[in-house]
């Protein structure tokens, strides 16, 4: 027998436990739309039994703790997927940008309608411009002394050169932006590392005093996921509830201590890489947006920039070596057609811009109708060039576009894959840790009813006590 007073206490404890549960339900409902929130439940346990002559008798309920309902395995899977997602997302963004800057788009209605009109109209893409240049050489070869054909050759060459310049400049700018983006990502990663270390300290303090720090754990989980998007991390959970974080094999957070941070460095070619700040150890990252950006910059974009430059420099040398031997309408020879050394500075001999009669189309002096140089230049368009891996100029251009397209299309596929896997994982985690409105509403009723009935016990005991007290007076 507990006795009436102890039963009164039992009722009161029960009411407190139900009230706490109600409070936690309130917290859950309040955070129903917070994606970082892990739902919490109150752990109830029977309170310490009292020895009676009937044996140990229960004394009601106590709230022992407020626990998070989470699945650590799912969390770690989501973290590692975040690295994959960060990696491919940054590649996709970088390459999408490069695609726009390259301006190599297909427009069938512009070129495919069977028009036999002049093909030297200005159009933004390199492959078209290359075709136009060689066609213009053909026109000059067919009408060597026609000033219109010469003028249109100079114009075509001029637009090709500016297209090369434009593409080269655009891609250089993009390269610079990617370097900036690596720097920005490193700054964000350092901020997150420091936040994680601080949260670790707070969590360790709370756990040491026997409590829980659920909401800080949630914040730290979100920081870890954001960090994983930037660089793939290895984490270990320590006994005091702290989580140590390593990136690329280097430990950066151990417990509440931020042992090192990330920094960018220039290996000498202006293309930023990542190392640890104090120990200056170069890091090889295998995922995350930092590495994704670096790989896009040095991979598909780097190749594209190189190939573009090779194509421009090959065009300059090949055209000039033939052209130098030609004679213009005034019998002069020896000048170059293109100036510059690569895609960034290719240009047309400025004398030709004002006077197309100086185009050296003839193979011999004083034979203005001779077209052998113009013809050789026109035929250069269909020749395999060893500097371009035995491709013609136009097929090398298509091949570059294809290789670049493959890289971007692969990034697109990977991003799609990541999105489906990530959605699935997030759904799984939500099904464990997310707040279900229906469930919380049902809990609300349960706790309310339990609270009411516990109160009823107190009321009843109170009545019984009154009865006991009144036994003497009556």
């Amino acid at each position, binding site marked *: 027998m507990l006795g009436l007073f102890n039963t009164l206490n039992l009722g009161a404890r029960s009411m407190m436990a139900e009230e706490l549960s109600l409070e936690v339900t309130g917290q859950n409902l309040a955070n129903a739309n917070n994606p970082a929130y892990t739902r919490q439940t109150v752990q109830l346990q029977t309170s310490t039994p009292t020895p009676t002559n009937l044996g140990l008798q229960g004394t009601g309920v106590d709230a022992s703790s407020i626990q998070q309902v989470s699945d650590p395995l799912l969390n770690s899977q989501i973290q590692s997927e975040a690295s994959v997602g960060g990696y491919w997302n940054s590649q996709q963004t970088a390459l999408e940008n490069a695609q726009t800057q390259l301006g190599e788009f297909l427009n069938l209605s512009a070129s495919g309608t*069977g028009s036999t009109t002049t093909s030297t109209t200005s159009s933004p893409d390199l492959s078209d411009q290359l075709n136009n240049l060689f066609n213009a050489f053909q026109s000059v070869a067919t009408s060597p002394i026609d000033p219109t054909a010469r003028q249109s050759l100079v114009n075509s060459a001029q637009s090709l050169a500016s297209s090369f310049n434009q593409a080269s400049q655009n891609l250089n700018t993009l390269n610079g932006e990617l370097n900036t983006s690596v720097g920005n990502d490193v700054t964000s990663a350092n901020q997150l590392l420091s936040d994680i270390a601080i949260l670790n300290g707070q969590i360790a303090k709370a756990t040491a005093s026997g409590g829980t720090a659920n909401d800080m754990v949630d914040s730290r989980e979100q920081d870890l996921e954001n960090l994983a998007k930037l660089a793939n991390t290895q984490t270990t959970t320590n006994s005091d509830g702290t989580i140590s974080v390593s990136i690329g094999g280097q430990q950066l957070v151990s417990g509440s201590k931020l042992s090192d941070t990330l920094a960018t460095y220039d290996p000498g070619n202006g293309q930023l890489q990542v190392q640890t700040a104090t120990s200056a150890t170069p890091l090889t990252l295998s995922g995350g947006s930092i590495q994704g950006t670096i790989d896009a910059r040095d991979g598909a974009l780097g190749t594209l920039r190189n190939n573009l430059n090779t194509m421009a420099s090959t065009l300059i040398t090949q055209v000039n070596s033939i052209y130098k031997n030609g004679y213009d309408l005034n019998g002069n020879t020896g000048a170059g057609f293109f100036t510059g050394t690569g895609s960034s500075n290719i240009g047309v001999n400025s004398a030709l811009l004002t006077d197309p009669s100086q185009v050296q189309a003839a193979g011999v002096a004083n034979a203005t109708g001779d077209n052998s140089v113009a013809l050789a230049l026109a035929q250069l368009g269909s020749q395999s060039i060893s500097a371009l891996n035995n491709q013609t100029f136009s097929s090398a251009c298509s091949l570059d576009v294809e290789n670049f397209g493959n890289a971007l299309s692969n990034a697109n596929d990977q991003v799609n894959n990541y999105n489906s896997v990530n959605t699935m994982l997030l759904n799984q985690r939500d099904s464990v*840790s997310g*707040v279900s409105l229906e469930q919380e509403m049902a809990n609300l009723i349960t706790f309310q009813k339990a609270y009411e009935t516990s109160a009823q016990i107190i009321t009843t005991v109170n009545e019984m006590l009154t009865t006991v007290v009144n036994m003497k007076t009556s």
Partner: protein
Amino acid sequence: MRIAGTSYMDSMVNTLNLMSAKEYQLQNQASTGQTISAPEDNPAGMAQALNLQAQNSAVTQYSQNVSTLQTNATVAGNALTSLQTITEKASEIATSADGTSTPAQLQADATQVTQLIQEAAQLMNTQNGSQYVFSGTNSSQAPFTVSTDANGNVTAVTYQGNTSVSQSEIADNTSLAVNVPGQNNSGSGARGVVSDSRYGADLFNHLISLQNNLQSGNTSAITSTDAPNLSKDDDNMIWQVANNGATQSRLQAAASFATTQQTGLQQGLSTVAGADLAQTLTQLSQAQNAYQIALQTSSQILQLQQSVLNSLP
């Protein structure tokens, strides 16, 4: 499976995003008529399309070359036909000038031959635009200059052009020379229009000789030398006219070949990169329907959730 409150919204937004992306893509295809617009759409197809475009552009250029050459050939052909008339007329004069002709008649014939020489020189200086068609590759130079004496008799006609020809491409690896040298006594190369040592043709000198012999009344020289010489010139001119005709028909054939090629290449392009409109539009309307249904389902689920909350006391 336990469904969290946010899951509905998240998956609804996800699904709708995916559907709009598909719809956007299809709409783009329908409006441009292309399945490939950017390299990412289909890298291999894009490369193929670019190669086809390059070929198409080259063929378009060939057909432009052909049409330029056709103009050239027509101009040259017209001049050659007139020249043929001149050589025929000169041959007639040479044949008719025999011992029975009166000196006055011979003088009149001589004047006519002088005019024929002038006329022929003028024809040989025919220009297409600023280009002299019969000066070999020395195209800015009038090929023939006529020297006359005080009496207006032609003493010499000198050739200023060269013996070269220029080749122009009319198809892949196929080139054709349209211009012809007015004179080629080098013994090799293209056949000269008025003078070629290999065929005994030397129209102007033969005409000058005829003119001089007519004036001096040397009919025996005309019969023995000038008439046979002029007949060689006549043969040469017939060959030139025929050759020009052959060139023109070759050009005609090249033009129609280019047109056929262009049609084929454009068909290839539309196979590689073109969108089948009927299919695309059907898919688009399917995608639009699916989107509508997804929206309706989502709003029903939200209503259902609302009614669950309302039904609780």
